[in-house]
């Protein structure tokens, strides 16, 4: 009665331990799976942004005409602040990869140092985003400024076809997408900062020295780089294109 079910298969073929599939550890592979599902969400959001942009191609605002504000100055500086935010996030990604590298050498002092800088970078980014949101809502001079100075949820004077004789308002989707896409990304940054902080405390307590490796830093590192990666796309498809 010996069929396929009772046939003896050697342990190696069955993955009976010894080495993991793709030579990737369980935790890292699951992090990649999670990141793919998250990337599909962001991909869907940005694709629908592209849909709206092409649907309202004549009236869709030009972002470089809207995002011209910079803190502590009234100068007209298009895209400079968002470039600064991008740079901050890239730098925090670099400090994270340096923390991972130090983890591979089991250098606890350096892991702490670079992970700490990563947390600081994330916090600066969140603060910048708060400033940008409030500026976008209220204008650079606060509530008393004229509403035409900025884009709001209901009014938007920056459509491509806008002139004084032809006052077409841009579709409200422009600001809705702004708040939803940057807000969803900002939530990821917030959770990333919190997770990094938890891991940083673990590193400082010597938790990973006891375990024998710093793979946890690598796993949160993957998440943090993913946040940077998403921002690179948001920067292009919301602010530039």
């Amino acid at each position, binding site marked *: 009665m010996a069929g396929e079910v009772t046939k003896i298969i050697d342990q190696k073929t069955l993955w009976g331990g010894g*080495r993991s599939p793709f030579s990737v550890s369980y935790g890292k592979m699951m992090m990649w799976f999670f990141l793919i599902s998250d990337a599909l969400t962001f991909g869907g959001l940005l*694709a629908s942004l592209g849909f709206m942009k092409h649907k309202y191609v004549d009236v869709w605002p030009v972002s470089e005409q809207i995002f011209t504000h910079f803190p502590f100055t009234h100068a007209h500086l298009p895209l400079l602040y968002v470039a600064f935010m991008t740079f901050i996030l890239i730098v925090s990604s670099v400090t994270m990869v340096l923390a991972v590298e130090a983890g591979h050498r089991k250098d606890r002092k350096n892991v702490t140092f670079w992970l700490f800088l990563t947390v600081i970078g994330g916090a600066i980014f969140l603060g910048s985003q708060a400033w940008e949101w409030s500026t976008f809502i209220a204008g650079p001079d606060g509530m008393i400024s004229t509403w035409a100075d900025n884009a709001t949820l209901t009014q938007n004077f920056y459509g491509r076809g806008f002139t004084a004789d032809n006052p077409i308002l841009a579709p409200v989707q422009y600001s809705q997408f702004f708040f939803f896409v940057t807000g969803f990304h900002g939530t990821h940054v917030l959770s990333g900062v919190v997770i990094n902080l938890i891991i940083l405390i673990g590193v400082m307590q010597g938790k990973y020295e006891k375990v024998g490796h710093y*793979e946890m830093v690598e796993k949160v590192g993957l998440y943090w780089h993913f946040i940077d990666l998403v921002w690179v796309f948001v920067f292009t498809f919301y602010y530039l294109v």
Partner: protein
Amino acid sequence: MKRDDIIEYSLGAEHSEEAGKAIRKKIWFVTAILSVVTVLEVLLGVYWTSMGLEWWVVKFAFIGLTVLKAGYIVMVFMHLGDERKMFKYFILLPYAVFILYLLYLLFTEAVFLSEVLT
């Protein structure tokens, strides 16, 4: 609780001091590339009209530079370049196929709708 039936750590992820030096050098090199590309993008975004470029050229330049940046982040910072070849395909291909198909559908419909609207 320590479990010995799960292999927690990827094989060969640890490296020595000398190997670390080379890796750090690569990290700073990629940092320089990412920064330069970002600066280029901003300059292009602000000055493309005065440079007399066509919008579609600028647009595809932006998309190309973004994909370049994304490639460096995924392959070097996320270490996907160091993983097995099959793992790379396994992560990237299903995603790319799905998103490209979605983009194809959405842009086809969007162009149609904008023609109907005007």
